[in-house]
């Protein structure tokens, strides 16, 4: 009896629930790998948002007696050369990575979309001039721009986020532009123009939804790349200044120096980085596929 009731609930559920729940059900059914990515992604967000509550120790709490302790129940990820709890530091690292990753990748994607759609759709002289500017911008090594910005403004989170957003945003506009150029030639855009639709409407209702797949992939891969680049910057002393527990800083600072005495110092932040970047990519791929109405046939 109970089993009959259960199956009835399962078959009826997609109708009763809201669009979001139905979407989550589809994600788990059709894209198990993407769902795993999503779970890790949410976990990562959760750790980042609630690091202050979750962390058993303070991020810079030094315990000279417990230096370079291997992982134990007290310190799941071990301790570093100053006796700081690595687990807590990784949680706080997630917080920094969430802030930098999302802000910089989000801003970068917005810049890419605005620039890419405008140059791709309007075309002509504007496209020619704007894209030569993009060429010039991309021909500068990223690091030089970052060094200049940091040496003028000093190291700190806002300037790193802003610079990374600008760097990736302008370079990424090329990807969006090429997608727009191919979408623009479709007859449905022509049809909208010939009915008298405004340029804004065409961009918003026709072009943007049809370039969403690359936009989503661009954003999710950027989250990963930004976290990686920030780590690289921290290594060079250009990132968020040292006592702050960034994954990159931990990996290249104590992690590298004490690699033989305490491999967990490099493994813990390294694994965090790898897993989060991989998860964002998987989740992004799944999102791209699921948000396409053409894929909705397989119910």
């Amino acid at each position: 009896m109970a089993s009959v009731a259960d199956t009835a609930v399962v078959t009826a559920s997609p109708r009763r629930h809201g669009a979001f729940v139905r979407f989550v059900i589809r994600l788990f059914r059709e894209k198990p790998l993407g769902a795993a990515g999503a779970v890790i992604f949410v976990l990562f967000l959760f750790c980042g948002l609630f690091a202050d509550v979750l962390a058993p120790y303070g991020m810079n709490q030094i315990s000279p007696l417990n230096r370079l302790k291997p992982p134990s129940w007290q310190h799941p990820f071990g301790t570093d050369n100053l006796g700081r709890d690595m687990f807590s530091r990784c949680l706080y690292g997630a917080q920094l990575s969430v802030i930098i990753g999302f802000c910089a990748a989000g801003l970068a994607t917005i810049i890419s979309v605005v620039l890419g759609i405008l140059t791709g759709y309007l075309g002509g002289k504007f496209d020619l001039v704007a894209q030569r500017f993009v060429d010039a911008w991309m021909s500068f090594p990223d690091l030089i721009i970052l060094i200049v910005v940091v040496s003028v403004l000093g190291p700190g989170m806002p300037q790193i986020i802003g610079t990374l957003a600008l760097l990736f945003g302008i370079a990424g506009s090329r990807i969006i532009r090429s997608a727009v150029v191919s979408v623009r030639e479709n007859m449905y855009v022509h049809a909208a123009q010939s009915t008298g639709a405004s340029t804004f409407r065409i961009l918003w209702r026709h072009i943007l939804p049809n370039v969403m797949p690359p936009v989503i992939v661009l954003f999710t891969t950027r989250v990963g790349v930004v976290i990686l680049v920030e780590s690289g910057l921290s290594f060079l002393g250009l990132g968020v200044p040292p006592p702050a527990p960034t994954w990159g800083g931990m990996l290249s600072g104590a992690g590298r120096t004490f690699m033989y005495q305490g491999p967990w110092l490099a493994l813990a932040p390294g694994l965090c980085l790898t897993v989060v970047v991989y998860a964002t990519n998987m989740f992004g791929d799944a999102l791209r596929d699921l948000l396409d109405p053409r894929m909705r046939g397989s119910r």
Partner: protein
Amino acid sequence: MPDTLTNTAASAPGMRDAAANGPLLRVEDLKVHFPVMKGVVIQKQVATVKAVDGVSFAVDRGETLGLVGESGCGKSTTGLAILRMLKPTAGRIVFEGEDIAGHDKARMRKVRRRMQMVYQDPYGSLDPRMSVGDIVGEPLVVHGLAGDRRKYRERVAELIRMVGLLPDMAERYPHEFSGGQRQRIGIARALALNPGLIICDEPVSALDVSIQAQVVNLFMELQERLGLTYLFIAHDLSVVRHISNRIAVMYLGRIVEIATRDQLYREPLHPYTQALLAAVPIPDPALEATRPQQIISGEVPSALRPPPGCRFHPRCPHAMDKCRTEDPPLRDLGSGRAVACHLHA
């Protein structure tokens, strides 16, 4: 909703009254030339493609004018120029008594309500990210006629029903439909604003033959019910014969012959029209084998360098000396028939 739409459409009384007697659309000496540019930074015009070069015709209210010709003859360009999706180089386009050839974007927007287009490709012409209801209703939204949601939804359902689909399909997406059904959606979108003129750019040539007949018949039914006027661009002569009242034959950017359907098929006057009609296969192998073959030789010359004199003379079996030097004008032969050929001077 349909009433309000017809009212708003008729709310420009001055223009409509003036045009009530004349044809709905009159195209006079329309030219669409494309410059061929060379160089990346400093551009120089090196040549001109004369895609449409002096085309004149008129379409009366409620009739269908077929526009036929080989690919590249400028028939689609003509359609696009009338819609002002391409800028005409010269000539007049008089629509509902108003010359729209020089209209700016803002003035053109008002005219767009009155003329719509049905496209060749039923796959590319519908936005895959929009539901069918949104696609069909888009022209209403664009022209600010979607204020009342309930009436808007009723109108969309009515349009979908009008083209032989079910109103529930409004929630679905284009990829769930077949080519023929998609073309019906495209037609519903074109009907949304109750336009006076619908330009059909090869609307059935991408469909299976069995579906073509259904869609052509739908066009004809709708014309009867709604009093539509069509400019029907096609290269398939049997389709054009079925739907058109009059037919204009184009060759290399010019109209070579205009006649009523029966005149044209019974007695084609221009050698090019004769050759075109002779090339239509007869669905009977015995007849097909015995009928005289009239094959025109050579290729269509490039619109970059059209031949001097009559544009058809290099391929014409009846070419005379005069044809090589003198361009024959489109001469009115009376009873709605005109031909551009020295043989019929």
